[in-house]
């Protein structure tokens, strides 16, 4: 019994040690990342490229998913919550609140963690195993700053737009159920969307998404940058990056929601 407890304690300590070591390495990498770029001309070029690659190229999937989720939420609310004892604006109101408070920031970032996170981890990981990062270092380039900083800043810049587009598209999806599927009366939906609107919720959604934007770029960058070995390890790093980013998004969502509400 005592031996079993000791084993559990040792395993716990090992886990804690690994977690702290990883966090320490992550902080060192971020220290190197957040330094002045050698050439602003090159940084700007990378920054614009990353905004396009990580942000603009994600608009399609964000709009598509947001449209259908907005429609589905509206249908579910209408079918499961709406009743003669409920005000007629309830479906529109709940759809708006869910889209604005959780879907457009947290859930959308979880989706982006899969798309963007795996892309970043595999790109940087491949650069590591093919010695492209070593080549940068030998040239005297701060490889962390050159590769990671434009990704983080690019995603931070484009994320508020993605949140706004997502919310707007979700509401359009809800209108789709009203005008195309005739599940809800359009006037009721409009009434619900306008009911007790609190503009702070928009800001809250944007602020949360900025934290998530940092997570879905910095964490996969770390996993890619520190990969060792070959293509199998790049694949593993990519998977680990997505899992870790998703977990961190969910954990930080709890704290941020409590903090900002």
């Amino acid at each position: 019994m005592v031996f079993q407890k000791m084993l559990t304690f040792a395993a716990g300590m090992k886990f804690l040690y690994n977690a702290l070591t990883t966090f320490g390495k992550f902080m060192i990498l971020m220290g190197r990342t957040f330094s002045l770029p050698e050439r602003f001309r090159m940084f700007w070029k990378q920054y614009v490229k990353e905004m396009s690659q990580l942000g603009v190229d994600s608009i399609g999937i964000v709009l598509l998913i947001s449209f259908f989720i907005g429609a589905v939420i509206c249908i579910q609310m209408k079918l499961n919550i709406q009743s003669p004892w409920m005000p007629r604006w309830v479906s529109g109101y709940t759809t708006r609140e869910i889209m604005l408070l959780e879907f457009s920031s947290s859930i959308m970032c979880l989706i982006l963690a899969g798309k963007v996170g795996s892309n970043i981890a595999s790109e940087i990981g491949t650069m590591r195993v093919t010695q492209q990062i070593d080549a940068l270092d030998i040239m005297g380039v701060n490889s962390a700053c050159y590769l990671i900083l434009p990704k983080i800043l690019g995603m931070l810049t484009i994320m508020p737009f993605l949140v706004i587009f997502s919310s707007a598209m979700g509401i359009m999806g809800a209108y789709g159920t009203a005008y195309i599927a005739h599940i809800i009366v359009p006037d009721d939906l409009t009434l619900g969307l306008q009911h007790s609107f609190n503009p702070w919720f928009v800001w809250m959604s944007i602020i949360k998404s900025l934290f998530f934007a940092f997570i879905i770029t910095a964490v996969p960058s770390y996993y890619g940058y520190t990969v060792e070995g070959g293509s199998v390890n790049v694949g593993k790093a990519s998977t680990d990056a997505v899992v870790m980013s998703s977990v961190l998004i969910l954990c930080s969502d709890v704290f941020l929601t409590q903090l900002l509400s």
Partner: protein
Amino acid sequence: MIEVKNLCKSFDGLQVLKDISTVFEDGKTNLIIGQSGSGKTVLMKNLVGLFEPTSGQILYDGRDFVRMSKQEKVRMRREMGMIFQSAALFDSLTVLENVMFPLDMFSSMTLRERTKRAMDCLDRVNLMGAEEKFPGEISGGMQKRVAIARAIAMNPKYLFCDEPNSGLDPKTSLVIDELLHGITREFNMTTIINTHDMNSVMGIGENIIYIYEGRKEWQGVSSQIMNSTNKRLTDFIFASDLLKEMREAVTQQHQNS
């Protein structure tokens, strides 16, 4: 000139480099040879600063690279060029952009001057006409030549090549060897090449260092290899039957004359 003094490197208690001392001279093609796993690449990675030596000194024209601050090392690295075994070209950039990269990063030239310099380097490695292609669209030999062009773009004082001939056919290997040798002479660089290629050893080796199990076993020039009495070196060099026969023929010729 690069001086290495009592260089040691260990990984988790396992000593990979054991007390290596040597000198790599200016304007010469210095070759590091040895079996796989003997520590050649580790030695080179120590020289360029990708690994920190456990002990010892690396002096670049008298400047101690190991004791330098991070900033000094970054400045020092701008005097180095390196050609990796895999060429390590940036996949997302064209051939011209790859060669221009160090110039874009560190030179104060105008765009026209940078482009001209990059084109001159590509011309030097006979790659005119491939500037708009991506690394994935060109052959392994061409990739190595692009890597050479990129490495010399900033006029480095020290050029490091990690197995530049690996994966290339003998004819292309000769082209790469001649190119590296020519560039070394032309720019009076200190060139250090890690190689397994015996053609390179015999052809361009002006200063050859043989590493055996992390230790410097032998140092000399290519003409001395034929007459060397070091068993480990001769076992390594004349491992192939063809070279063995060649050596016997040379020895026979000497005895007859």
